[in-house]
């Protein structure tokens, strides 16, 4: 039965298993790994505008890294992290109820409609979505005039364009869909019987959500956070279109070192510090997320009751 012609043919196959992936491997080596390796290298070089590639790699030094640490950079860096962390948090808080509702509370037909309504705006041009925010936020626009007319804001109108506030609003908007989708997928994959079992065992809705649903959806939340937080930290478009000078973010600052200032070593060092900071922030974030529910679960009396019930239900069966 196992001795099929196919297995004989397969045994005759002598090429490497990754044969079909070779074009992709070459592509990624040449256009992804190598360029990024060179960015790492450039960050240790010195600026030399006389060359076609304006970096002198003759004497490697960490000069660019020490040059990075000035007041402007730190301010932008802090602002970027603050905006990204807050936006990721807001995306989870706003998106989780939507994903939960779509996954558990509606019929299959409505699921499709809600998902389509999330996908369509999310996969529309990122740039156009960002530019669109200039319409409601315009200081002399319709919304502004209306709010002034109602007497809710001062006569100057809405003054948040070209500030971090505008970037914050738009960045939550831009990434919300990319948070909702992975959250939905994770919640949707949870076996309904797990939640039912938890309720049958006497756990309330809060205990079920905290003790069963949320841990099972963990991978989806992690995916959602990764898919939003990392791109946010490197976001170039939102800050460029809406931030102005006051709402600058690190991504736009890095880009200006390459498109304007032609200081590749400084830009490279900034980019590498950005990636390092993002990774650090993620590690800290996940440690907090990993520890917090465990502490909460231990402390919660409801969970204790459930746990005792589970144990007492199990013990007669095992004896």
């Amino acid at each position, binding site marked *: 039965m196992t001795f099929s012609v*196919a297995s004989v043919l397969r045994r005759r196959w002598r090429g490497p298993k990754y044969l079909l992936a070779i074009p*992709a491997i070459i*592509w990624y080596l040449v256009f992804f790994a190598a360029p990024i390796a060179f960015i790492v290298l450039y960050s240790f070089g010195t600026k030399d505008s006389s060359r076609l590639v304006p970096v002198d790699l003759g004497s490697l030094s960490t000069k660019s890294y020490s040059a990075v640490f000035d007041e402007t950079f730190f301010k932008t860096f802090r602002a970027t992290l603050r905006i990204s962390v807050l936006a990721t948090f807001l995306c989870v808080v706003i998106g989780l109820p939507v994903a939960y509702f779509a996954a558990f*509370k509606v019929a299959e037909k409505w699921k499709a409609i809600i998902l389509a309504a999330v996908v369509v705006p999310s996969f529309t041009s990122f740039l156009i979505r960002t530019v669109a*925010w200039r319409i*409601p936020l*315009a200081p002399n*626009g319709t919304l502004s005039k209306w709010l002034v007319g109602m007497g809710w804001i001062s006569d100057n109108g809405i003054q948040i364009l070209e500030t971090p506030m505008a970037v914050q609003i738009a960045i939550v908007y831009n990434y919300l869909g990319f948070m909702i989708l992975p959250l939905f997928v994770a919640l949707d994959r949870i076996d309904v019987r797990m939640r039912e079992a938890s309720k049958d065992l006497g756990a309330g809705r809060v205990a079920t959500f905290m003790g069963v649903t949320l841990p099972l959806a963990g991978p989806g939340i992690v*995916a959602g956070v990764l898919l939003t937080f990392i791109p946010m930290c490197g976001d170039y478009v939102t800050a460029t279109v809406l931030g102005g000078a006051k709402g600058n973010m690190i991504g736009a600052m890095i*880009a200006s070192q390459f498109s304007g200032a032609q200081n590749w070593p400084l830009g490279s060092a900034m980019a590498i510090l950005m990636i390092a900071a993002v990774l650090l922030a993620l590690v800290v974030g996940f440690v907090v997320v990993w520890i917090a529910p465990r502490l909460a679960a231990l402390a919660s009396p409801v969970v204790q009751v459930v746990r005792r019930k589970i144990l007492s239900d199990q013990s007669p069966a095992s004896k």
Partner: protein
Amino acid sequence: MRKKIEVLPKLLSAWTVLVLVFLFIPISLVFLHSFNYGGSFTIWSGRASTKWWGELFNGGVMYGVLIRFAVVVVAGVVFARITKRRENFSKRVSSLILPLTFVFAIVLNGLMTEWYRTIFDFAGIGDSIRNSFIAAFGATVIAVLIGGMSGVALARRPGGWTKFFMATVFLILVTPEIMDAIALATWFPRIKAIPVIGIIFSSGWGPFNGGINKLWVGQSLYSSAVVTLIVRARLSGLDEALEEAAADLGAPPGRAFRQITLPLIASAMVAGALLSFALCLDNAVISTLISEAGSTTFPVALLGATRSTIKPFWGVGAVLLFIVTLGALWFLAVILRRGGDSASKIAATFTGS
């Protein structure tokens, strides 16, 4: 107690409606303001007008475009009808004809004619829309080829290499775009110095200039990773027994691949292609940093235009691109639906799993 149970779903549904409205407001404003009478995109003049849209039909070029589009689509519909009756034609393949026809019609209009240039001439964005289509199309071809092949290899020939390759794919997906952008922007000057390969990225080949070739490379990275994941997910969900049976019946590997594997993954490839096309069409960051004077795409040009007053005409261009993206997404959903996917599975495809 009973009442409490009914409150939560109501609250959740109200919240969902609010969030969905929030997601749609800016897009509807773009649509509305493309009908603005005044000279600014961001400030509503108080009067609606189709004058910016009317520019599309100036000189009658647009009629030719629409007619060409209609002819190709009708031909596709007829061809799909004919092939449906023929038994030896795989059902999967025939269901793909219609979406492919639309893609072909868009590409034909985009590549073969200069209509963008003519109708958008006064706004100076015609070339940018044309470049957007050429760049997205080329990048999608690359992404489908290399992504499709590695997807098949991942699903059918797993081994020690799988881990490394998947790690690379995820790395590509999560790397901030600005990192890729600066890496490629500094990489191309170096590549250009290489004798033969360098010519591709400096003076280009055929009708495609060096800047367009750079865009193909830059836009293909992310989208090929997406195609890889989609094809892999689809193929690993299918039993290998079919391919084994073909081999048992004496089909050589090439033929088994062509007649069994390829039809099986065709829908995943087309789904990946459509998603990739939508992603490439709106790529702004990488494109901005690597594009040159002759290869400015619509997002790059729009990003430049935001530095001064934006004309409502940009709204018209945005809505047109939005319609194309929407069409691609719709066909994507149709294809996955026909493949038997539930809404949940389609959502999973969008997140690349």
